[in-house]
């Protein structure tokens, strides 16, 4: 697994290029709990963004409620800025099916209509189920059928591949 600092540096460069190409001013960072918030904070620091990080908990917007019920752990979302008319930087640690990002965008729109949303993900595992692609990605990885990837933090960020026990 690659060094996280290098991945974050690369993402920062790519985001700068993206910001310049699109002519975006003052991006407001929003991380998806929990790992996405850590990555968002790291990117915010590197990009020198003044605006505080928003934190999204997408529990109430998940599309698997009717299959598995309400997730046991939920904490309030926190957006310390107006999203209406803003350029948002939405950040998650891992993207796979794209369902989390779908839920996050639905939630963001309940706060107002952003001018644009840029999507950044530290790790892209492929296997998309929805037509959603990050604008900036740290790395692409392929996992075995019984593996999953986890971001550990928040002091030192570290990516770890875990074996999923048999159901």
């Amino acid at each position, binding site marked *: 697994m690659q060094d996280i600092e290098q991945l974050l540096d690369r993402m920062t460069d790519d985001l700068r290029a993206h910001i310049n190409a699109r002519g975006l001013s003052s991006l407001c960072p929003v991380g998806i709990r929990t790992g996405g918030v850590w990555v968002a904070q790291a990117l915010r620091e590197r990009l020198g963004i003044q605006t505080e990080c928003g934190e999204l908990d997408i529990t109430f*917007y998940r599309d698997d409620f009717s*299959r*598995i019920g309400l997730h046991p752990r*939920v904490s309030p979302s926190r957006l310390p800025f107006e999203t209406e008319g803003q350029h948002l930087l939405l950040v998650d640690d891992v*993207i*796979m099916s794209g369902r*989390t990002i779908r839920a996050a965008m639905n*939630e963001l729109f309940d*706060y107002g209509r952003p001018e644009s949303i840029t999507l950044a993900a530290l790790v892209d595992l492929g296997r998309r*189920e929805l037509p959603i692609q990050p604008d900036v990605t740290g790395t692409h990885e392929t996992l075995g059928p019984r593996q999953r990837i986890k971001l550990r933090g928040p002091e030192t960020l570290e990516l770890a591949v875990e074996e999923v026990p048999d159901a």
Partner: protein
Amino acid sequence: MPETSRDLQLTADGELRHFLAIEGLGQALLTRILDTADSFIEVGERTIKKVPLLRGRTVVNLFFEPSTRTRSTFELAAKRLSADVLNLDIGTSATSKGESLSDTLLNLRAMASDMFVMRHSQSGAPHFVAQSVTPDVAIINAGDGRHEHPTQAMLDMLTIRQHMKTFSGLRVAIVGDVQHSRVARSQIRALNTLGVDEVRLIAPDTLLPHEPEALGARVFHRMEEGLRNVDVIIMLRLQHERMEGALLPSESEFYRMYGLTREKLAYANPGALVMHPGPINRGVEIESAVADGPQSVILGQVTNGIAVRMAVMSMSMGGQLNERQSGTGEGVAST
């Protein structure tokens, strides 16, 4: 009936399936209800105060006893969860035409309802419904007879936790007509389960249940003693219809003895919370200067009521759905 509360309310995995009573629910589950409600408070502060959890589900407010406030907060809670809501005041419709409770419920099931929010003057009516009539509809108790009013108790617990951060070490006094209060019964259970130091009941003997200590509470007859070193004061509503019997001499006599005035409030700890389930009778249970004063959290209770109801509705609906197709839900999150 009470023996089966726990089994009725929980799925095999220990998830909420119906919300009928505080009795039978453990500390971990009550804490989870409060945590979930905390997140719904944030939803209520947004521009668009709605989440899609119960989208396409039908919630029936089934009120066999009138109640404007409880019904409207349940209605708002269901709407903020994106459910379709049907309000039925049964007292004025079918039952007066001779239809039985079971028949009314069968008809509602035929309308493909997913959840009944039920208030009934008979203790145990929601248990009866959860048990016998509706295997795949979630039942929420909105107050049954003198038995329990669990969502009111949980919104009070949420209010206490917001201000006091924790339950351990707290002394809580419940003042007034405990005997006829389903709210008090749920509150005492919730407070003890969540681990407060002491629950006190302050009332004349005529307004106390026969064995108040069995509920896990200490009894006081005088406010001067009962309020000493107390951190939270919960005033109960004095129902006017109770005054007609021989239980109390008069409203003014009750106010003199048990009404929460500024003088009596001074016996409690400085900064003690003043709570009331509403609607308040000013000058009967509580002085206006106290009800509107800096220690009163009465209006915050109303806001919390919506969030707590959203929490128990989404948790029990989730448990119900999960159970309907048990074995197929893998519980693995997709990213």
